């Protein structure tokens, strides 16, 4: 199934990687992780990545709203413009 490489990756390294990944997941998702299985970890990681993608999407929306206010020639537009220019 997984590629057979000659590199000697120890069990320790794998479990360290897994616990690092687990520690990144938000608190609310970690509650049932004491009985963590590979499938559970993958599922939680996938849904976390999806939620991060949604956040980026939402922040892009809000930033573009702000950029649009730049066209109005208001004092705040000048401030934003100067920040962008620096």
């Amino acid at each position, binding site marked *: 199934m*997984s590629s057979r490489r000659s590199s000697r990756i120890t069990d320790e390294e794998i479990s360290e990687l897994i616990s690092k990944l687990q520690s990144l997941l938000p608190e609310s998702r970690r509650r049932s992780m004491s009985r963590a299985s590979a499938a559970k970890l*993958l599922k939680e990681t996938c849904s976390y*990545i999806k939620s*991060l993608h949604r956040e980026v999407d939402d922040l892009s929306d809000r930033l573009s709203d702000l950029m649009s206010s730049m*066209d109005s020639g208001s004092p705040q537009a000048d401030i934003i413009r100067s920040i962008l220019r*620096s």
Partner: protein
Amino acid sequence: MQATKSFEQAFLKHLLRGCRLSAVSYKSMSLQERKSAIKLSADVAMASARGGRKWTRGLITKLSKEDEHRSFLQLILGTEYGRLTKPCHGSWKIPRSKKIVRRSLRVCSRRKNNLRAPHGVKSSVLARTLVEKRTHALKRLVPGVESLDGYSLLDETLDYVISLRAQVDLMQKLLTTFEASKLGALSKCTLPERKASFVGK
């Protein structure tokens, strides 16, 4: 685990540049177009600030597949664009045959599962299939990891998640800065109070 300071600086620099290019060069952009440009800038900023990982190449390659993105990407990245989109010739052959093998395995197991009665299936087989399914789902979410498995896949995923979190965090900070400057412009004398109430948001 966090992204480094140099990552943060490189990210902000690229993002601001992308925002500037999209705000100034394309004044008559619709809100949607501007949003896409900003999102594109943010993704490019994240990939180029991190550099040198499977997912960074995968992301840039994916983004440059759309013609309208390509010119914007070249504008932002400049000379880095060629370096980041150069294909890694070594890895092409193996993944292709692996994909075919995997696909045929999947078809075989599907046929087997259809013939077998549900209660006859061992839980370990089910567990393995679930892991496979979820691994495929993960590969659809993390760019550039199609050919990876096991440790390498998790390693790239970890790196990608750390970078994504930093991306979200920095975009939020940028947004806050812009919004605060707006409030500051409106009422300079009450600025400290306004700032305090804003930080609570």
